[in-house]
């Protein structure tokens, strides 16, 4: 069953896109901007995993946790040191600023980890398992399971914790949130931390399959953004559905149409959706 094979691959990648898309949406909710640094959060996730699991030789699961924590810390530093000092409220300037920060972070990654391609170990052994008539890598299953767990954790965070509720309030009506005294600075910081953790997890999960390099996050991250746009930018369920749709259509396109243009599909879709359905495929 060929198509089942493609569906598995698509769901795995789709989960990664969904995680990255969620990162974009969380920062967008808190600040109203597209955060280009999200792209580098993905790379950083892979890099931290490499340092913990390969360089230090510690267990891989520990490396995944370290990726999330480490990237979240970097994200918080980015917000505190580079975005907060900007005294402008002009969104385009802020977006541009994140472009600049993203380039700087990439430079820092080059300096710390070098420019070579590296191999990162998966969470568990590499032998494919047979599931529903197709072979699946265990890592692909981990991607789906851990993404699902992350989504559940996010749901709990945004519905059950005061900070999460504050963030939702800011996202739905920033002015009203400011009036009732929700601390905007803390919300932004938290948004960056959560977005960083999402990106770091995505990077730690996907780099064992893609191999790791300093630019690995760029393409993945932009595809994550495309997923967010497909689902309607800013919408959390939209981000997840958009990610899965993108992952599966990529896998099917690679299998049945042309594997050469698999990587371009997301971007063609991105332009088409922006041009003709800026509210996303699912939006009203």
């Amino acid at each position, binding site marked *: 069953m060929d198509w089942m094979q493609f569906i598995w691959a698509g769901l795995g990648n789709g989960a990664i896109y969904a995680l990255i898309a969620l990162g974009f949406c969380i920062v967008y909710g808190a600040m109203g901007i597209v955060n280009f640094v999200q792209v580098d959060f993905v790379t950083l996730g892979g890099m931290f995993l490499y340092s913990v699991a390969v360089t230090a030789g510690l267990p891989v699961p520990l490396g995944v946790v370290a990726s999330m924590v480490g990237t979240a810390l970097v994200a918080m530093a980015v917000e505190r040191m580079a975005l907060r000092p900007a005294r402008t409220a002009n*969104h385009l300037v802020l977006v541009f600023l994140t472009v600049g920060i993203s380039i*700087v972070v990439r*430079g820092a990654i080059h300096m710390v980890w070098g420019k070579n391609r590296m191999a990162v170990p998966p969470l568990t052994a590499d032998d494919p398992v047979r599931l529903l008539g197709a072979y699946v890598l265990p890592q692909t299953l981990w991607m789906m399971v851990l993404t699902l767990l992350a989504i559940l954790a996010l749901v709990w965070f945004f519905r059950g914790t005061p900070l999460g509720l504050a963030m939702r309030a800011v996202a739905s009506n920033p002015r009203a949130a400011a009036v009732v005294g929700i601390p905007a600075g803390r919300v932004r910081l938290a948004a960056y931390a959560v977005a960083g953790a999402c990106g770091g997890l995505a990077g730690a999960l996907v780099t064992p399959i893609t191999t790791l390099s300093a630019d690995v996050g760029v*393409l993945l991250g932009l595809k994550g953004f495309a997923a967010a746009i497909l689902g309607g930018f800013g919408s959390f369920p939209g981000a997840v559905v958009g990610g899965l749709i993108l992952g599966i259509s990529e896998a099917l396109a690679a299998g049945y149409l042309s594997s050469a243009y698999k990587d371009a599909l997301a*971007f063609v879709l991105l332009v088409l959706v922006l041009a003709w359905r800026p509210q996303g495929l699912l939006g009203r």
Partner: protein
Amino acid sequence: MNARLVHFVWSHRLGLLVIVAVAMVLIFPLVTNNPYTLELTNRIAIISLAVVGLNLFMGSTGQISLGHAAFLAMGAYGSGVLTVHAGLSPWVALLAAAVLAAFFALVVGVPLLRLSGHALAMATLACNVVVHHVLLQEDQWTGGPSGLAGIPPLSVGGILLDNPVQLHFFVWGVLLLVLFGALNLVRSLPGRGLALLAADEIGAACLGVPVLRVKVALLVLSAVLAAVAGSFFAHTYGYVSPDSFSIFVSTDLAIMVVLGGMGSVWGSVLGAAVIILLPEVSDAAETYKEFVHGGILVAILLFAPQGAMRAIRQGWQLAVWRWRRAHATA
């Protein structure tokens, strides 16, 4: 110095600047005929062509394009493929490539420029990724990752532009013409409208600036200038490869614009020159390229969002102003 001289210089500042610029271009090959230096300055002129266009677009509409390397690529590969594979003459190829870029900008721009905010930034970025991908994949035409060689040079009036001195006069001549047009535009009545459009879109619209049409027109203009720059690039080096047109090149172009100052015509040349010359000044600038370029962008946006050229100009205006005031009361 007396007050009248200062007044004369001040009121003819643009004309004088143009004369000085022309004179410098004419004299430069006499000062140095080092091919290495001329290659650098020629590259500055070619890239400046694209940056001036991008600056007119970004500086007037307040929109960001992160994909202008795609238009550069259309010019370069349009010229390359049409001359190498179709045997067209370089000028015809250049024209065809420019038309292609204009058409592409129109198709992308009309729907996207209706939206506000980040839509255009992301869409241009996506277009750039797709174009870059096509360059890599269609190797029977583009040569794939190893690039396309054997592109013939341009010729003007029977003279083949194949040495750095001739190229110098040609590319700087074209750049000066474009700069002159851009300065005219900025100083004209529509140009005043564009300055307001950059600062306040609703204000400009209510005063009669046809916002959507202007945005699309400027995107097309900047695409054509980028395509022409790309064609010059291809015909100058005879060789093009996909690496010269990645999204990182697009961000570099945008950094040049911000460095010089959005909406500042001379600033475009300054921005291009600084970014191109940095690696010559220090090896570290090449080794830590991302760090330096990203750092410049962040620093400018945080501390001098009006850009270097505006900051210089404001300093100079302040000086002239003080001087005039001192002499008016004396």
